[in-house]
């Protein structure tokens, strides 16, 4: 069953490669995504026991990430059909294949318990996303692709060195060198401290650059800015969460070691605050709304890192925020993609009055903005509130106040870009393109927005249990 999560998208990719028709090909996406979502629902409800050898197991942490990815991908898949109908001049073969291969690799990230395999899967997501960023095939997108590919590859390479250090630390401790999570955690207290410390640093830097934690985030605005909206949604909601899951795995081992965890937590909080600060500074006067979303993503990975670094109550918040951020970013990127298509411009100099020209997309963008900045009643409010309140409960007042301060600055900065964009009168000197809101381009993000609202008002019981199980794995009180 679990292997189906990996194999199904690969078969779909093969299928997308074979289908010759540019109009029919995108239909493979929703078909695969629907089956994937059903599979995910079944597996999350009733996970099979670990595979013999312990390589494959869907634990609660994996479940949370898998749920988020599968849901987001399903929404993006339906949206893709509507979006690609407007982009018929360009072959979408590579796009469809890349999306499906990436889904397969993301699935593998969530179900594996072997850190080496997880690394391979994560690297696969990096490489498979590169051609998608280059979908528009112009000078700007090639620049973005190059920066993305190089920085992420280097980061991931450093993570590999970290993994090797980790394996060597078991070897020096006279145990069989292994990268399986279970045995690593069992022997964590005996690991050689020097090697383990070096491993933790390299892994944090490596996965952190993939996740986009400042100061390793420099590729993010470029890649998010130039990629099509739906690719941006998957980057911000899918890849980021996969990288975060990898950091969670390292966190688990650090936790089991008992000593390394303090350093790891402090570094996470520090990097998280720096990320939020960077985002707050660069978001002000950001005229390119897609780049603004990228900085918002930097801000939110910062929030995730802080939640994780605070430990205890923050853990639940971080896991919940992982889900909320992924879905909300999906709404924002998809609706911003629609707006971009209609104005064929992505700067606020031209884009004005989106609410008048595109009531649905503009409205969704506005709602997404309200949600992502942490306003009630949407679910990001709850997760951010959980994190910040845990900071004060833990007595980390400075962290808490800085967190709130950055949130306020980000809110103002983002509002200064979003509100003129959505409100007001559309420009009269530029003609709208042939894009108009249709069911397939607006329905999917609308559905996701509804999910966010429901999660904010009435989070379903099974999800709360799942998140709590996950938090317990990370050391929270049961």
């Amino acid at each position: 069953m679990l292997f189906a999560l990996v194999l199904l998208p690969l078969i779909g990719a093969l299928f997308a490669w074979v289908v010759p028709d540019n109009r029919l090909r995108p239909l493979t996406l929703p078909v695969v995504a629907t089956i994937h979502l059903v599979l995910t629902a079944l597996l999350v409800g009733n996970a099979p026991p670990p595979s013999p050898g312990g390589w494959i197991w869907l634990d609660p942490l994996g479940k949370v990430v898998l749920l988020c990815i599968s849901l987001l991908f399903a929404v993006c898949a339906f949206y893709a059909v509507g979006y690609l109908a407007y982009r018929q001049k360009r072959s979408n073969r590579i796009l469809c294949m890349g999306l499906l291969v990436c889904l397969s690799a993301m699935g593998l990230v969530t179900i594996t318990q072997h850190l080496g395999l997880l690394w391979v899967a994560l690297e696969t997501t990096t490489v498979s996303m590169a051609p998608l960023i280059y979908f528009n095939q112009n000078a700007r997108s090639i620049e973005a692709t190059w920066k993305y590919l190089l920085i992420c590859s280097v980061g991931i390479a450093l993570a590999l060195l970290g993994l090797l250090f980790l394996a060597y630390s078991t070897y020096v401790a006279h145990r069989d060198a292994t990268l399986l999570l279970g045995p690593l955690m069992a022997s964590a207290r005996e690991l050689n401290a020097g090697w383990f410390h070096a491993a933790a640093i390299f892994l944090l830097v490596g996965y952190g650059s993939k996740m986009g934690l400042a100061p390793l985030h420099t590729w993010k605005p470029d890649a998010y800015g130039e990629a099509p909206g739906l690719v941006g949604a998957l980057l911000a909601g899918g890849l980021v969460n996969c990288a975060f899951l990898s950091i969670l795995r390292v966190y688990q081992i650090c936790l089991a070691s008992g000593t390394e965890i303090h350093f790891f937590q402090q570094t996470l909080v520090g990097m998280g605050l720096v990320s939020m600060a960077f985002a707050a500074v660069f978001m002000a006067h950001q005229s390119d709304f897609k780049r603004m979303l990228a900085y918002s993503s930097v801000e939110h990975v910062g929030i995730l890192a802080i939640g994780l670094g605070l430990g205890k109550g923050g853990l639940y918040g971080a896991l919940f925020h992982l889900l909320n951020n992924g879905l909300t970013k999906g709404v924002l990127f998809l609706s911003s993609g629609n707006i971009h298509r209609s104005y064929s411009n992505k700067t606020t100099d031209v884009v004005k009055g989106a609410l008048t020209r595109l009531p649905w997309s503009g409205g969704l963008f506005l709602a997404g903005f309200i949600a992502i900045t942490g306003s009630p009643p949407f679910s990001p409010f709850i997760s951010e509130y959980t994190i910040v309140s845990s900071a004060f409960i833990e007595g980390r007042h400075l962290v808490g106040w800085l967190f709130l301060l950055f949130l306020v600055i980000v809110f103002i900065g983002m509002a200064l870009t979003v509100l003129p964009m959505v409100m007001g009168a559309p420009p009269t000197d530029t003609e709208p393109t042939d894009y108009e809101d249709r069911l397939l381009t607006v329905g999917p993000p609308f559905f996701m927005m509804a999910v966010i609202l429901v999660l904010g008002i009435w989070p379903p019981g099974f999800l709360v249990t799942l998140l709590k199980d996950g938090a317990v794995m990370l050391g929270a009180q049961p």
Partner: protein
Amino acid sequence: MSAFADQLLVLVMLINLVMLGTSRLVFSIRAVAVQGVILGILPGLINPFSGHLAGITAGIILAKGIVIPYLIGNAVHKAQIRREVEPFIGYVSTLLLGAVFTALSFAFAEKLPLAPEHKDLLFVPASIATLLTGFLILTTRRKAISQVIGYLVMENGIFVFGLLLTEAMPVMVEAGALLDLLVGIFVMGIVINHISREFSSIDTSRLRALKEE
């Protein structure tokens, strides 16, 4: 045998320095290929023979010694570029920096305790030195191809360390890592091709449209 492994590791470090000092891209690519082949030979020298080992040796030599250099060489040929013209930092300076980094990596290796059977081997300093050299090439050179070469050198450095764990690592992970590297380089080659078509040059310092105002 392990004494011979050490000599080979010294050779790896020397190749690093050669790469820092040369401006000819084709020469750098060959140097990387030689490094890859040495990487393939090394596990056989420090581990007893096994099928797993033979597979790794063949895989590394094939991927790092033949296929990847061929892919990059192809990109060089298509972009019709032969030299790295003006790096951000001159050759003599990078060479000296490389030497300093090598010395530092020896100092760093002193700090980390090795398993008794690896005590006298140069794997750790060679690995760190190669990693840093790759980083140096990556950051100081302008041409996209030089940057890819830098990335490869970095990967080689990581592999040098990985060789200590050849026996302990499952084949699947190693094969996956190699395959990812291969595909990554392949994609980079394609991107380079597009860069040279779009900008009529593969000078990455021309990639500067995207920045904050």
